[in-house]
């Protein structure tokens, strides 16, 4: 181990992952450190293991070998993983994944059930977050009534529901036109500035990568440039 996990907010150490049915190594010994309020972009060809890496870092999946350290401590058992994911991580996906029957305001509150807030406080906080992403005027609309750009902003508000320290985004602008992509990207960078949020963003977009502190290139389950 050349670097010390304790120096990072999150440190992925020699991650290996092979899917049971796949011949390919999705991850072949990836190490990566993320500092507080740092913006890291990951790029690489399709199938090179970017999403896999993001999932393992976000505790959605476990590596076959290697470990993820958060503030110097390994992630541990399932209970800890759930808690870590709920409290420290915010997820944003390419296809938003909002619940279709809920309004914007309700969608943002979904992750809050695990927190300490009461019903009224949850609503207040959700209103606040909608304001932050400029969506207060769409609080009562369901996803189907929103444009895709608006949906991604709601999803972004939802990812902030439990005040995470690290935001993981898998091609967050992949389904957006350039105008909306810029809007979302601006929001992300503002969040990083105002909340000292660390960003780890998988992207194919040069614009998104250009704004990052550093860009990590992957190929065949390995980091080729950092």
């Amino acid at each position, binding site marked *: 181990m050349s670097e010390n996990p304790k120096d990072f907010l999150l440190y992925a150490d020699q991650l290996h992952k092979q899917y049971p049915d796949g011949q390919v190594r999705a991850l072949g010994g990836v190490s990566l450190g993320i500092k507080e309020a740092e913006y890291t972009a990951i790029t690489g060809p399709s199938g090179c293991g970017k999403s896999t890496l993001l999932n393992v870092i976000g505790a*959605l999946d476990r590596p076959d070998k290697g470990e993820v350290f958060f503030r110097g401590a390994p992630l541990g058992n399932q209970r800890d993983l759930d808690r870590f994911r*709920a*409290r420290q991580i915010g997820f944003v996906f390419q296809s938003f994944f909002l619940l279709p029957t809920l309004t914007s305001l*309700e969608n943002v509150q979904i*992750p809050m059930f*695990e927190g300490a807030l009461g019903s009224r406080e949850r609503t207040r906080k959700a209103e606040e977050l909608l304001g932050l992403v400029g969506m207060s005027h769409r609080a009562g609309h369901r996803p189907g009534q929103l444009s895709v750009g608006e949906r991604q902003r709601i999803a972004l508000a*939802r990812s902030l529901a439990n005040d995470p320290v690290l935001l993981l985004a898998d091609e967050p602008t992949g389904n957006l036109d350039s105008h909306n992509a810029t809007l979302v990207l601006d929001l992300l960078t503002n969040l990083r500035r105002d909340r000292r949020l660390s960003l780890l963003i998988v992207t194919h977009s040069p614009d998104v990568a250009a704004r990052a502190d550093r860009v990590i290139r992957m190929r065949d389950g390995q980091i080729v440039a950092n």
Partner: protein
Amino acid sequence: MYFVTFVLKNLTRRPVRTALTVIGLAVSVGSMIALLGISENVEHSITDSLARRGVDLVVTSAGKTDQLASEIDEKLIDQVRQIPGVKEVSPAMVELIEITRDSGTSINVLVQGWPADNFVYEDIKILSGRRLLAGDHGKAMLGLTLSESMGKGVGDKVTIQGEPFEVVGVYQSFVVFENGSAALPLDEVQRMMARPGKVTGFSMRVEKSHNDPNSSVEAIRQQVNALTDSTGKPAKLSAQTTQSYVDSVSQLKVVRAMAWMVSVIGMLIGVISMLNTMVMSVLERTQEIGILRAIGWPRRRVVKMILGESVILALSAAVLGTIGAFAATYVLALFPKVNGFIEGGVPLKVAMEGTAFAVLIGLFGGSYPAFRAARLLPTEAIRHV
């Protein structure tokens, strides 16, 4: 937003399926409530009537679970009357006897053979005609509902086990099933049944001390049970308090057992239908549940959501089923066949038992789907768009 609001929203997503499931479950919970309610009501009406008549003890012959098969020598009744503290003794011969309608069809009716001095006469209401008197022969009284269903009133003739009887009175009793019965002089019933000098049982009123009525009753109960006949052999009488008598009546026991059996079957059907609904619902929401896990829900919360949905479904069914059971017992009480035997309404206790049943259906029927849902992998959910 409350968590339960979210759970409710999930149920409104497929309103037709939700409604059908609730209706199906309501049928099983409702039939359970109706059956248990009816058996409870029948027991109540008997206990109440005995209590209201001031009956403290009911005496039948020992070892006979079927009240109609009980047989006691009338001579013993005089002995019982001699026991200090015994106020009144009211013997009766109760039999199911065939009454022929004018159309030629016949029905089995509970016929009560009452002596002219029976204290029962005190609290039945003579609606028309008169009560039976000492020395009456070939005379009968009809309970109100029996009189209505047969279309017979005072002065009409009825055929009881092939013999003609003249209706001298129509009565109404607060004991529901007595309204569906006929009353004949005791000696007529004894003759027709070829059981002269016998009764099927008797009820007793006893003197009670103010501060401890129960022990007065108990003391006399034991003396009755210990009676011997003229030859010194045990009389084998079984005196029971009204409550334990009602508990021991075998017909009521059968009704109770049937009600419970149907309830258990209903519960199984309920669990299966709940399983079906919830498994479908979980499969449909595979991706959504994966997302919930991905954005921070632990397995426990997914389980709570699914169980919450199934318990809410079950509780709605309990409400609907209780209302249905209420209505059903009232409708049933109108049928001529059961007329007089069944009261409308459901006791609170039974409604609560039904609700508890429903909650169990919700928990049992929801737990496997909840387990399935909790095992869904978030990575699978977000991989396919």
